[in-house]
């Protein structure tokens, strides 16, 4: 059974179709990049999986359970966590309070202090600034906090939306290093929206290429880099 299954999913905003009849599955422990130009429907796809927007059509399953139609908090309780676009840190809360918001859904409350220390070990800067206001963190630190906050819910499947947005390339490298080592440690399944397919190729994994709300290619991220399909997805078919 796949970890995540998307079947004939469509998402519409009024008359605008953002995601158009998409189907794919993600295996347990897999790392899947979703790439494509602006407006391809990447973020809408993630938002629909997490329950933030309602699917117009289709079905979403996790471990064989149907997620579509459930409210976001119920989906989070099934072990899905989201690092959203723009990070959406609680700026008025301290770093530690941000990390603690999501532990309310956990049944293994006794493991929370150890998990908190594990996050601080993975992201030492969060540990040293644990009592600081989260709004005072730099962009890279906020991205790490958003990842740590999602991990504190002890997810099995994590959705990460544009972790590189607005960050310096060196910081992006660091964010991906941590993400990959955390994935290896915890046996996480990762679905990452990454606009730069070159970046996805370097990090490695499977890549789905979206355009106009549809999947135009599905394969190994590294082999995509110089592919014509990619240019086509971004710039359209060359005139004959």
């Amino acid at each position, binding site marked *: 059974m796949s970890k995540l299954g998307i079947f004939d999913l469509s998402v519409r905003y009024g008359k605008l179709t953002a995601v158009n009849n998409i189907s794919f599955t993600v295996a347990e422990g897999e790392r899947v990049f979703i790439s494509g130009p602006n407006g391809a429907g990447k973020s809408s796809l993630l938002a629909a999986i997490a329950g933030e927007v309602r699917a117009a059509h289709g079905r979403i399953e996790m471990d064989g359970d149907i997620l579509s139609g459930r409210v976001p908090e119920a989906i989070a309780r099934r072990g899905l966590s989201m690092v959203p676009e723009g990070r959406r840190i*609680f700026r*008025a809360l301290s770093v530690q309070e941000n990390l603690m*918001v999501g532990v309310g*859904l956990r049944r293994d409350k006794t493991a929370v202090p150890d998990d908190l220390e594990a996050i601080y070990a993975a992201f030492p800067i969060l540990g040293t600034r644990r009592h600081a206001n989260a*709004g005072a963190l730099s962009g890279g630190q906020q991205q790490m906090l958003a990842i740590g906050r999602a991990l504190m819910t002890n997810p099995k499947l994590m959705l990460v939306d544009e972790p590189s947005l607005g960050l310096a390339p060196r910081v992006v490298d660091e964010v991906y290093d941590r993400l990959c080592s955390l994935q290896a440690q915890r046996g996480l399944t990762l679905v990452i929206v990454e606009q730069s397919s070159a970046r996805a190729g370097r990090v490695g994994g499977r890549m789905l290429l979206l355009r106009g709300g549809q999947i135009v290619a599905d394969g190994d991220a590294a082999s995509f880099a110089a592919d014509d399909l990619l240019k086509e997805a971004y710039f359209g078919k060359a005139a004959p």
Partner: protein
Amino acid sequence: MTLQLVFDALSLGGIYAIAALGIALIFGVMKLVNFAHGQFIAFAVFALIVPSTDAVAVMGLGAAPALVLVPALLAVGAGLAVASEYLVFRPLRNVSPVALMVASFALGVVIQNALLVIYGGRPKAISLWPELGKPVRLLGAEVPMLQIMVICAVLLVLALLAIMLKRSRVGLEMRAAAEDFGMARLLGVRANAVIAGAFALSGALAATVALVLVAQTGVADVRMGGQIMLIAFIATVVGGMGSLPGAVAAGFAIGAVSVALQAVLPIEARPFRDAFLYGLVILVLLLRPQGLFASASAKPRV
């Protein structure tokens, strides 16, 4: 004389602050300006007396010892607010903020008319804790015992609320939800529980205001929540919509300015005290349209 003014300012400002908090708490989590808050206060006032349209009020709950009366009335306020949320606002969860606000007006009218039908329209004299009217000497000033009790009660309520918000799980979830409700839900925070919790707290705060109003004025009037609701709403706007410290600070500031104006205005200008007060409010909002303490949640998200 001046010390007396300080006590007046603190006790009046404290009531405004608690009423403003009741509005700011709900606005924080669901962007609803609850205009029925004044009627929540009036409802709690009438919950003290036996239902009847007679001109003379007979104490019901109000005759109970304070240790029973206070928690029971807080529960009445919380119960009314939670019931309102469940019956009126929950079915309207996804409508525009303007529609929610109109619904809160309608709810207020319904509560007020229910009180009119049950208790009649004439104000009734009721006497709650008359022994608190005795003055005591404090730091060289004659201060009514009641005023000291009000100031202590306000500080106690503010301290308890601050601890609850800072230290408890539900407090953390409320603060997170106030900043970004959608994100809090993505982290498993239950929307219904947080909203019901905010309404319960807001209703208990309305009951606190009701107790103080009755003890101070000795009157139960169907219309009594309206005036304080107006000032409390102004305090939440001046403080910055959704900012709890802002609502408290602005409540105290409005209380202090009213008392100060009463003292310094020439006799013939005193009937227009409120005009001066609202003039100042306009001035503050011209200089800082976002309020004194703009909250993160009031900013649009990109």
